[in-house]
């Protein structure tokens, strides 16, 4: 509690960093925004880094001396292009790049920038994306959290929805102007079959005057049973083993 209180004191909190406007050409990791899985190549690198970090911890290695780099700082456009150019050169002449990296400071690299060659650099950057992101692939705690806690990707969610759409026979007699949202919590097996299904507002089913809700809830349960095994992703079971489906027919009933 003391630690938590201390951490919340205002003088300990960091000042917000003013970032300059940026025109990014760098390939950045956006999984936390779109939930699209990592490219296989990048994923391997991340796993490798994770493994490395894990090893270091388990062996209780001495603290690594790390050059202070602002982890959240986003490089200026020129810097990014320089980095890309650097990699390009590295491929062409590994020995030369070695020297240059050692000799040229971050600011001195500006002199090497050739504006007429941006397009080529951008194209090249696609091929070299894994190497470019090598530095940033060392995932911060925040990023790791986002990966673990993220929901289904858009395509995964779409696949699941499409499957249930086909199984759900909407009772056409229901009124469109009533709040008839049925929430069903599912516990799933890794193959998508259902271990347990639970209507979250179950009490409403047996209340007088809630006949429409009961009918909708039953139709939703039928849809789930008809559809199983559900089309769930082949990975990340821990993430989706508990799933909530919200059935709302108003849009369809209103026509």
């Amino acid at each position, binding site marked *: *509690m003391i*630690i*938590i209180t201390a951490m919340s004191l205002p003088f300990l909190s960091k000042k917000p960093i003013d970032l300059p406007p940026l025109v990014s050409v760098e390939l950045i990791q956006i999984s936390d925004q779109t939930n699209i899985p990592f490219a296989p190549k990048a994923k391997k690198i991340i796993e490798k880094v994770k493994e490395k970090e894990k090893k270091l911890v388990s062996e209780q290695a001495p603290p690594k001396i790390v050059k202070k780099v602002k982890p959240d700082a986003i490089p200026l456009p020129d810097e990014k292009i320089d980095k890309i150019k650097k990699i390009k050169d590295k491929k062409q002449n590994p020995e030369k790049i070695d020297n240059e990296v050692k000799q040229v400071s971050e600011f001195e690299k500006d002199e090497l920038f050739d504006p007429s060659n941006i397009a080529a650099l951008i194209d090249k950057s696609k091929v070299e994306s894994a190497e470019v992101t090598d530095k940033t692939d060392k995932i911060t705690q925040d990023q790791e959290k986002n990966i*673990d*806690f993220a*929901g*289904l990707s858009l395509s995964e*969610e779409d696949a*699941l*929805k499409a499957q*249930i*759409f*086909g*199984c*759900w*026979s*909407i*009772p*056409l*007699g*229901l*009124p469109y*102007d009533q709040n008839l949202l049925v929430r069903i*919590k599912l516990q799933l097996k890794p193959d998508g079959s259902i271990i347990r299904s639970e209507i979250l507002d179950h009490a409403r089913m047996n209340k007088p005057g809630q*006949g*429409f*809700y*009961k*009918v*909708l809830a*039953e139709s*939703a*349960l*039928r*849809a789930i*049973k*008809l559809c199983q095994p559900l089309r769930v992703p082949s990975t990340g079971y*821990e*993430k*989706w083993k*508990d*799933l*909530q*489906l*919200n*059935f*709302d*027919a*108003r*849009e*369809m009933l209103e*026509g």
Partner: protein
Amino acid sequence: MLFRYLLLLFILLPIKSFALIEVDITRGNLSPLPIAVSPLSIDEKSKKDFVKILKKENIGSEISAVVENNLRQSGLFNPLNKDAFLQKADIANLKPRFEDWNLIKAQALITGKVTLVDEKLRVEFRLWDVLAGKEMIALAFTTVPSNWRRVGHIITDKVYERLTGEKGYFDTRIIYVAEEGPKTKRIKKLAIMDQDGFNNKFLTLGNELVLTPRFNPTNQMVTYLSYFRNLPRVYLLDIETGMQEVVGDFPGMTFAPRFSPDGKKIIMSFAKDGNSDIYTMDLENRIVERITNHPSIDTSPSYSPDGKYITFNSDRSKYQQIYVMNSNGKNVKRISFGNGLYGTPVWSPRGDLIAFTKLHKGKFYIGVMRTDGTGERLLTENFYQEAPSWSPNGRVLIFYRETKTNSKGEGFSAKLWSIDLTGYNERLVETKTDASDPSWSSLLSK
């Protein structure tokens, strides 16, 4: 002390949990629900007895056929072909093998049993949720054997209500004007039938012209208009007893008498001093009350189900449009603003919609709109059609449609049609003669 340490440890321990993933399902298929209607099983003795009484080979199959037909006509269910059934009716009634019914894609199953007990027909039926493997409803009815079709309708109502959440409309009747003869010399009789077209009966002989029969929403009384010596008369007819009485003679053009929701009043329009307005008549004391007083033509009044409002059509804004007012005639508001002419407004028994006939660019439409005039939807279009009447659950409309005659004046016909609120399930209602002016009764069994 130890407790405090444990509490601190609990607070500081990193807790790793996953947020529950939520997926919104906002679409589904609107195809009718696949349902298996197993023939009602019957023992050999009862079967032989029913052959003698009803002249029907297998009354169990006949009742299930009524149920199946009703469900199909509703457009909400798809009764599966009986040839595909894997389990026999008598065994299915005891304990359905859900895997077998699942295999033929049935989501619901109806089973049952028919017996003859003390010269009476006893029908048991069960509705099963095939996917959940559980019974949804189980009921038994006892009645005179001649009522077997009604038992089929009542079973359908129960199944419909259990699976859709709203009351059914199958154990009902339709009263209409049966028409025969050439268009210029039509004989019009009052006729009544079950909603599926069976048990048709003529109630008048056809000596007098009959028009606009309307059911009382609370019982089996009917009011209608007939011309006697060229004078319009409003009649009351008790369907159960056949008793008929004249409510009154009214001057000039009189239109469409209709009951109030409590069945105690009749609302209609008639012309007094050359001006057509809306009036009510109390059926107990026969006192007539004027509701509208406007130089325009106000006709076709219809009460809201709570009796607080009246909808009617009027040409007070130059063209015929639909209006809503309080039941005392105050606070008149126009609700239709689309192109064309609007008429015959009828308030839904559910209270949410008003059905109407619309004439636009030479075509007639049957449509619905909300009671404030928004959300207008045209359900069907034709050469000539009008007079929509609601099913008691406010889900289906019945109306009549006339066909065009050829250059010789031949080929004319008038038929009853029904359409549900989706606008997709449009069906011809079979009648022995031509038919017009239908009115749907309330449920016979409440």
